[in-house]
């Protein structure tokens, strides 16, 4: 039969293993999210799409502009 110190050691190891597993899951999720952010950012920047230009609407700034932010071409930005 295991002594109380052995049981304590087993429990400590189980807790340490669980903490390691939780830490690994968190790291993977955060890394995945960061990778998704970089990918989304790159795709948007690479495609050069800065917004649709089909519908006109008035913004809070009081200027007439497209449904979304217009492209660099329409704003004259490069």
């Amino acid at each position: 039969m295991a002594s109380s110190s052995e049981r304590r050691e087993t429990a400590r190891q189980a807790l340490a293993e669980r903490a390691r597993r939780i830490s690994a899951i968190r790291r993977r999720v955060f890394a995945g999210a960061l990778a998704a952010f970089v990918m989304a950012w790159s795709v948007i920047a690479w495609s050069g799409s800065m917004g649709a230009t089909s519908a006109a609407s008035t913004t809070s700034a009081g200027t007439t502009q497209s449904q979304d932010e217009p492209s660099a071409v329409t704003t004259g930005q490069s």
Partner: protein
Amino acid sequence: VTTDQLFWVTSRAGGIVALAAASLAVTAGLLMGGRFVPRSVDLRVVHETLSLTTLAALAVHVFALLGDGFINLSLADILIPFASSYQSLWMAAGITGGWMLTILGLSYYARTRIGVARWRKLHRFTALAWLLGIAHAIGQGTDAGTLPFAIALAAVALPALGLLAMRLAPATEAAT
């Protein structure tokens, strides 16, 4: 990409990640609560981490807009529903959903003070906040009409929608 566009692109990428992470968090939460899979510590950690990731991405999505010199939104515009006249209904849906996600998400850490049973009831409204986020993305999102966005949204949102329908179905049947 110019400096103005830098903030705009960052905000859009943040919004996409927030929507994806929220959808996956809802899926994990429904899998846990719906008893579809055995209750495990791992799934709870995935759910919690995805929720925190959602809030971080949401902060990037919202506060990056302040740097955009073209759209010129103020802090009130991005934090108070209907404060901005820019596509106010979709903006309000996003802002309301964002606040709900933040408050309901962070309430997890005060659940013992709130009362676990009461907190569980409140936590169900997270699904509503997520649906508001989807409405905001589809109604106002610059990328909503693009194929990659549609595919990505379908991939993460449809499983959650299916699980949500399965969860709500017995309740609806019981009520009729």
